[in-house]
């Protein structure tokens, strides 16, 4: 193969790569609200939340409610932070603690349930809960921990968009109509600091 042919082939390869790059750039720039069901790289939960570095959120002892968790989940005194204190119409209280020396957190609330999270696969660890009879009493709640990148959570119910309250890396939104069931939540979108809109795919 002559040097001229080799150069021509190299230019051809470069051209193909450039076309692919241009197509990819167009596709990715078309919609910043691309449906994303998981973060490309899961973020370890603990360092993703500034609230978990805030010493003023620590509570003394172990609140009685937390002692009723499965025995292997009960946190130790001195490790528990209260990130929400009787907020909203249904009075949501949320505790979060680090599991041992890992980046895993556990969270528990008397009204929106409990769980453990090793990493954020999406910026909002969204739970949809109803503390009492579904469709009666207290309304359905959309809530959970968020990463530091989250600046807004949009919840769509009946075509109307509402905004969650966010404080101490904890977001919550209560449906206005307590007769609605969890399936009434049509869409949940997290808006990030860089302008990205992340559809939670609910």
């Amino acid at each position, binding site marked *: 193969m002559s040097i001229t042919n080799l150069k021509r082939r190299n230019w051809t390869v470069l051209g193909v790569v450039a076309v692919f790059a241009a197509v990819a750039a167009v596709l990715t720039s078309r919609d910043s609200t691309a449906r994303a*069901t*998981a973060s490309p790289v899961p973020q370890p939960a603990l360092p993703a939340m500034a609230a978990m570095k805030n010493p003023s959120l620590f509570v003394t002892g172990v609140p009685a*409610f937390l002692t*009723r*968790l*499965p*025995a292997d*989940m009960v946190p130790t005194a001195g490790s528990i932070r209260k990130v929400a204190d009787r907020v909203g119409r249904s009075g949501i209280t949320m505790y979060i603690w680090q599991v041992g020396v890992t980046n895993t957190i556990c*969270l*528990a609330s*008397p*009204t*929106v*349930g*409990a*769980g*453990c*999270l*090793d990493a*954020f*696969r*999406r910026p909002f*660890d*969204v*739970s*949809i*809960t*109803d*503390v*009492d*009879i*579904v469709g009666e009493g207290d309304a359905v709640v959309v809530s*959970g921990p968020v990463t530091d990148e989250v600046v807004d959570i949009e919840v769509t119910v009946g075509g109307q968009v509402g905004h969650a309250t966010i404080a101490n890396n904890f977001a919550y939104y209560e449906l206005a109509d307590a007769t609605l069931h*969890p399936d009434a939540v049509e869409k949940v979108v997290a808006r990030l600091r860089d302008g990205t809109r992340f559809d*939670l*795919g609910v």
Partner: protein
Amino acid sequence: MNPKHLLVRAAALAAVVVALSATAASATIQTYFGPAWTQQYGVRYDSGGYNYPNWNRAYRPLWYYETIHYWDGCCTSWGFKRNYDENPIVWPNPGGYAWSTCMYSDGDIQGSLDDVTCQFDA
């Protein structure tokens, strides 16, 4: 008795006591959807009877949409939690005499749904 034998017997006795204590401590934990099962879309797995559960818990090997709640065996659900990412997810406040339930309900499956374990403590 040979002191060495005495020591061995004491150690054995201690092991039995520890084992019995552990059994007693976990005796109330019921697994109603075992690790050898495969969870089906939209199928409700439940405790198979009424209890006064203290909590309801679901472990899943992978990330997908899981729901745990309680129901009256007929018509009404309560103590409802649906989540994608937590493992386990727990509902610690059942509110009374109920069936514990655990269900894959929606969302994007990432791999196998094997090895889900649902538990309650009553």
